């Protein structure tokens, strides 16, 4: 069966994305996630089911089923921009590894059309799912949020052992791996924690970059739209100074570090 017939569930396509991998990119957001991060800015991505979300007072259907073949024309329409900027396609979510066959076939179709491919993923899935996508992948943007498994579980509803294990395995492959850490006040914004993550990242073979992504509140309204409670209501985004301090700490690892994607 052709990869173009594989069906999956997505909830958004965002063109002209300039912070999720190199160059100008189009992001495909997968629906459904294994984790429930308290700060998640795309809460509508978490449930696999198609949902209704209230946006600016109107009902909006979140989620649709598409085949790879149906997606490709839109993904190819910014070809000139990818070529000029060294950009391409990024699959994000949700957790793309929750739909491994769809992710694999979509990436395969992108490669067939000469596109640079990236995924944003926590890697929290059986490694056999990760292995499916690696042959068609140029860049893995992987989240490492916390080194302490209990704390990780408290804020994301998942322990971190499998994530760290998979990170080591991905690092053994030919795929470029960049480690990203959302800096969330009260969770991981200490120098010790950032240092620990950076050192882990530096220990991975082939990893050259570590990105610190400051927590932001842009997704807050969506929680109300989904009739859900936003757990981090009283948290202020980290200040520029705080981020600069943590950046210096991360840089001690010897990796190239930056604030933002």
């Amino acid at each position, binding site marked *: 069966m052709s990869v173009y017939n594989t069906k999956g569930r997505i909830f958004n396509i*965002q*063109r*002209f*994305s*300039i*912070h999720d991998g190199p*160059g*100008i990119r189009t992001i495909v957001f997968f629906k459904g996630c294994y984790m429930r991060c308290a700060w998640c800015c795309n809460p509508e991505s978490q449930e696999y089911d198609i949902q209704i979300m209230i946006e600016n007072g109107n009902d909006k259907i979140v989620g649709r089923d598409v085949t790879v073949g149906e997606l490709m024309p839109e993904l190819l*329409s*910014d070809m*000139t*921009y990818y*070529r*000029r*900027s060294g*950009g391409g396609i990024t699959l994000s979510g949700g957790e793309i590894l929750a739909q491994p066959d769809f992710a694999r076939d979509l990436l395969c179709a992108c490669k067939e059309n000469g596109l640079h491919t990236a995924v944003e993923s926590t890697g929290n899935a059986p490694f056999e799912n990760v292995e499916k996508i690696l042959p068609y992948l140029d860049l893995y943007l992987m989240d490492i949020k916390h080194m302490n498994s209990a704390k990780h579980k408290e804020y994301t509803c998942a322990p971190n052992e499998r994530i760290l294990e998979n990170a080591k395995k991905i690092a053994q492959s030919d795929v470029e791996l960049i480690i990203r850490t959302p800096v969330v006040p009260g969770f991981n914004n200490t120098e010790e924690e950032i240092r620990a993550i950076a050192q882990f990242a530096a220990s991975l073979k082939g990893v050259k970059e570590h990105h610190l992504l400051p927590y932001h509140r842009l997704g807050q309204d969506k929680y109300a739209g989904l009739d859900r409670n936003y757990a981090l209501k009283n948290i202020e985004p980290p200040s520029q100074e705080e981020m600069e301090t943590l950046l210096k700490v991360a840089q001690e690892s010897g990796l190239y570090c930056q604030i933002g994607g």
Partner: protein
Amino acid sequence: MENIKFVLEKSARIDKLIDDLYAKMPEIESARALLITESYKQTENMPTIKRRSAAFAHILRNMPIVIRDKELIVGSFTVGARGCQVFPEFSYEWLVSEFETIGTRSADPYYISEQTKAELREALPYWKGKTNSDLAKANMEPDAYEAFATHNIYTPGNYFYNGVGHVNVNYKKVLEKGYHGIISEAQAALNKLEITDADYINRSNFLCAVIESCKAAIEFAHRYAELARETAEKESCPVRKAELERIAENCMHVPEFPASNFYEACQSFWFIQLLIQIESNGHSVSPGRFDQYMYPFYKKDLDAGKITPEQAQELIDCIWIKLNDINKVRDWASAEGFAGYGMFQNLIVGGQNQYGLDATNDLSYMCIEASMHVPLPQPSLSIRVWNGSPDSLMIKAAALTRTGTGIPAYYNDEIIIPAIMSRGVSLEDARDYSIIGCVEPQKGGKTDGWHDAAFFNMCRPLELVFSNGVDKGVQIGPKTGDVTQMLTFDEFYNAYKKQQSHFIKLMVNAINAVDLAHGERCPLPFESCMLDDCIGRGKSAQEGGAIYNFSGPQGFGIANNTDALLAVKQLVFEEESVSMAEMRDALKANFGYGLTGAAAERVTTEIATELAKEGIEINDKVIRAIYDEVATAKSIPAEKKERYREIKRLIEETCPKYGNDIYEADMFARDVANSYTKEVEKYKNPRGGVYQAGLYPVSANVPLGAQTGATPDGRLAYTPVADGIGPASGRDVKGPTATANSVAKLEQGVASNGTLLNQKFHPSALAGMSGLTKFVALIRSYFDQKGMHMQFNVVSRETLLDAQKNPEKYKTLVVRVAGYSALFTSLSRSLQDDIINRTEQGF
């Protein structure tokens, strides 16, 4: 770390000059108007061309001159900074009628003293019946006049009331030969004539006028030399004294003789630029490829160790300031259309040379640097882009874009060169193009492009389809039939094209009427001596002396018409969910919404005037009742109102919109655009040239939108029409790449008088080197798809809203309006709103 080339220090002088420039509101001065009137009274029996040069010489000998504190480049248009002169030979009655309101109007106010008013009141009546505008009107078919004066289908108003400008003269020739050299050239041409030649009289009159004009220009510079010397003698500061002595030397030598160094070339350049604008008040007098013709002078001095890059930069910065020291007063309606004290002096850097090789040089970068040092609206800096443009130039330009002044604009060699070649320009000349005014390409030094011939509001013919050609009770368009009886969409679409073609014909008549008037009443011998081949042909550019001649009227409203036609197609003809009668009534009723603000007041006045004509007594009570109805639409029954609003919702929510990379919608937009451009290119002008359409409204989309009823794209009555060739405000929802892909589907090469795409970015999109490189990639990608022009506003919405609230804090906030940048606070409120409402492309 960002590695941007040619970051040079700004001299302290520059900020002082800028502060002085904006210290006061600009003022109208009377000197030129009084002098030209005096001269014309003495030359009534002379041929027009000689009257023109005699008047020019009289003005230059007698107008007050001034050297401003700390200036290095001298020559001023007015005694006060940023002031303007009056040009009664083109038109003047509007000015007299606006004496009392001009200081307080919303767009481009000017101070005018009681003494100036009195002087002008005495002098100006001489011009009654003698102006260019009077003759233009007399030349025009009555229908053609009414269609613009009463019905606002199009407006040839710019050249109807003003000089033409819109020229890029041969600066290089003056820099290399001096006016002395041009006098010799004219004299040689004169010597070759036989007095028995059939055209001897016209030719010799013209050549004598050229010689007199050039001599006057030289004398004018000598007056400055004298003033500089006198000022130097009184000057106590030794540094300034030396500067003034150098200025005196410069002005004795240029523009009379070839410039012998970079400083002289700068001074000579400025005299050319200033003098053209004293001869005529046409705007868009564009310096063109400044980096090309100035470079040899810079290189020679640099190699000889006579100048440092910093010294050269200071001189360029000084020129930038002088370009902002010149101003033009327009009637209030035109001021709305060209809002922001626009002078549109377009200066372009980079691109290919005549041999097809990249021409970028150090000055290309230093011009960009100058626009960073002098963050003001002038010059309209432009960048030519092609596959061979160095990335470092693009990054430098992007860094300037990021400052938020809307400068520079980017132009694509790869489409402009073939586009103007298709109009008969040679390959070598086409490669050497520059941009005039907003976006209009031409080969400088050889072209009389008439680039701003008219604006044509494409939404109006569509409105007339619904009224069977009737506007304000008059049958002005063809009878295309009862719209409710049309059986197919093609019938409807053809009716639109038929209405449009009819008014394009009338517009061509109106434009040609104005064109002939300029040739007959206001030929420009001084400007013409710097345009090939006027001296050779022995006639002014206005009479057809230039090698390339065009007339360029711009169409606008493509986005609204595309969305409107698609909505009619889908709702009325395909789904049959809205009947044509309902659509017509909904438009008439403004979709059940009342009017607000100025539109409500104007419509109230119109209705009251109509009623008065019918003999109904108009008193306060009647006015209040009319206004009440206009503002609330309360007489429309509730269920109808609901239905009309429902129709608007259907249009907005279910119909495809141009600008979202939807192939069918975009290809339809292409056809709509071609319905205008391919009709316009059929016609010829009186100077022996052809018509070529442009697609952009400058800022006329706001005032002309205010004359346009509701349209079937859901646009409410009297609100702005879409700007440029971009999508209608807020209707593009898929980001800048999708928008650019859509716009690139238009056949832009046919719009060889220029197209314009505004994009608005949030500053964060250009952050860091990575932001700049992605921004450059975006421009290059649009250009890969043969887009012609792109320009950007990079100011956050919050900043603009704050500037509306606290204008005093934002006196020099410059934004991109249309093909130019202007001071935000000098724009009318409705234009400010229009800019704020353009879709902001974030990510």
